[in-house]
């Protein structure tokens, strides 16, 4: 099954472009210290706000730090925020969705009302509200984004489970006396995994955008730790004199999120060609 998905995926060109980009980014993020031409935190006030040149490809920032090195380090931070946050939201969302859809009854009713309540709050507002109360910190940001962004996924997974529950292979498993927990884990869960993968891929892009937005409002990853969001944010104060401070992180965020979206859409089409348009 996985091989069929993979074959179909490779044929979708936009998805492939996205995947190549993501692999490159992953390598850059993991091996950032190797590529960094200079220490990303080393200040050189005499060299401040220099435009891109042969020695500093992306110029220097307001403290004379090398923007390229900070961008590379930032890739690591921004990507890990994206992945950890989505990891949290996927675990909760899938768990709630499978339990709710498979068990039904009052468990389902309670969980779905909880989802409804969460969906009434604009997610970004909820995140802001919580983060503005806490001391800022990178793990809190990951946790808060993850803990607030699962309800949508839970709904999708639940709907899928409701469909699966009525299919023959589940009925036969039940007839054979398989326990409910084993049916959920062995028969239902693997079948919703494809949806979860699509949602997770799209979610990482979303989480990176959210972190950037939070940084912009001063609630994201705190300087001096570099994240694409906070490089961009400090760049906005020098918008007249140093275009490169704003241009590179903005482009990096755009390209990364775009890549995640392309891969996510291609995955969806590969998994379910009937939906492909």
């Amino acid at each position: 099954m996985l091989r069929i998905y993979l074959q179909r995926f490779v044929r979708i060109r936009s998805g492939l472009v996205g995947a190549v980009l993501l692999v490159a980014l992953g390598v850059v993020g993991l091996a950032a210290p190797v590529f960094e031409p200079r220490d990303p935190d080393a200040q050189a006030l005499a060299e401040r706000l220099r435009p891109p040149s042969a020695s500093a490809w992306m110029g220097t920032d307001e403290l004379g730090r090398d923007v390229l090195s900070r961008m590379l380090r930032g890739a690591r931070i921004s990507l890990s925020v994206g992945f950890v946050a989505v990891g949290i939201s996927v675990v909760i969302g899938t768990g709630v969705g499978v339990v709710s859809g498979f068990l039904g009854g009052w468990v389902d009713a309670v969980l779905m009302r909880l989802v409804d309540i969460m969906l009434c709050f604009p997610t970004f507002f909820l995140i802001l509200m919580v983060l503005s109360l806490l001391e800022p910190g990178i793990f809190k940001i990951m946790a808060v984004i993850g803990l607030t962004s699962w309800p949508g996924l839970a709904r999708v997974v639940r709907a899928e489970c409701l469909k699966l529950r009525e299919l023959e292979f589940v009925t036969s498993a039940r007839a054979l006396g398989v326990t409910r927990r084993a049916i959920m884990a062995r028969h239902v869960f693997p079948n919703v995994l494809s949806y979860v993968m699509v949602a997770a891929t799209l979610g990482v892009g979303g989480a990176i955008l959210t972190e950037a937005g939070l940084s912009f409002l001063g609630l994201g990853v705190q300087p001096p730790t570099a994240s694409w969001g906070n490089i961009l944010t400090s760049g906005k104060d020098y918008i007249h004199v140093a275009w490169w401070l704003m241009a590179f992180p903005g482009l990096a965020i755009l390209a990364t999120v775009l890549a995640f979206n392309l891969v996510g859409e291609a995955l969806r089409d590969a998994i379910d060609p009937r939906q492909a348009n």
Partner: protein
Amino acid sequence: MGRYLLRRLLTLIILLLGITLVTFAVMQLAPGGPIDLATDMSAKISPEMKDRLNKLYGFDQPWYIQYGNWLARSVQFDFGESFKDGRPVIDKILERVPNTLLLNVCTMALIFLFAIPIGAVSALRQNSLIDRGLGIFVFVGFSMPTFWFALILMLLFGIFLGWLPVSGLRSLDYGELSATGRLLDVAQHLILPVLTAAFTGLAFMSRYTRVALLEVIRQDYVRAAAAKGLSPSRVFWRHAFRNTLIPMVTLLGLMLPDLIGGAFIFETIFAYPGLGRLGMEAMMSRDYPVVMGLGTIVAFLTLLGNLLADLGLAIVDPRVRIVSS
């Protein structure tokens, strides 16, 4: 229909309770009490004074009593007074509502005005060059960081070209302008925030229109309409397009929280006097009553929007009523 309405209203009440509970719970996360945060900066506050303030606001009570009291007041839209200037929270919120409404109505209008033709063109010319081009635009729209887009717009139209104002809702000389002058002035100030707000929604909506239309034009009744000799434009407008409109009502409800969530960013950038900026300022200065009031009102509005959308759907589409009752 009556039973459907009753069921929906009952759920609404449960959800409202849940919303207030979540807002209240989030506020309990704050380290120290609200009084500490409101008074820490002031050297003149003695411990006795703090106790008195705590009593005054009821913070010495257990949480469920506090929640009960707060709930009893907030169902009457009394969210207390702002810590910052002592004005009633509800007044501060209500005075910003028209501005936010103005911005969102313009944004929605812009989204629909462009999303429907874009989606229709891509669906009717599926896989053509123009469809692919629009597809790229849509993906970029999904992936663009809102505030980056806003900054680029400001830089381009506000600074390099100098055509448009980059902040606020009115110019300094607003008072001296004629009626038309005032209207033009506000319109000028609206252009950039509306463009920013509409961009992501536009991508989302045009994508949706395309997918929905592609599904509908393959239906038998569309083929039948074409087969009996109706003109292509009649087939499209009367038979295909109308059927994509129904779910759009629901989408409108779903987009509302996103628009309000985005408002925190772009209202801050453009210094636009709306709910988003009020919320941002309140959060930054830890003005609890305003944050709690705003959270409740925003969630309540979303709920109301969704309910109206669902009711609209139930009226137009009988299948909805039957399935859910």
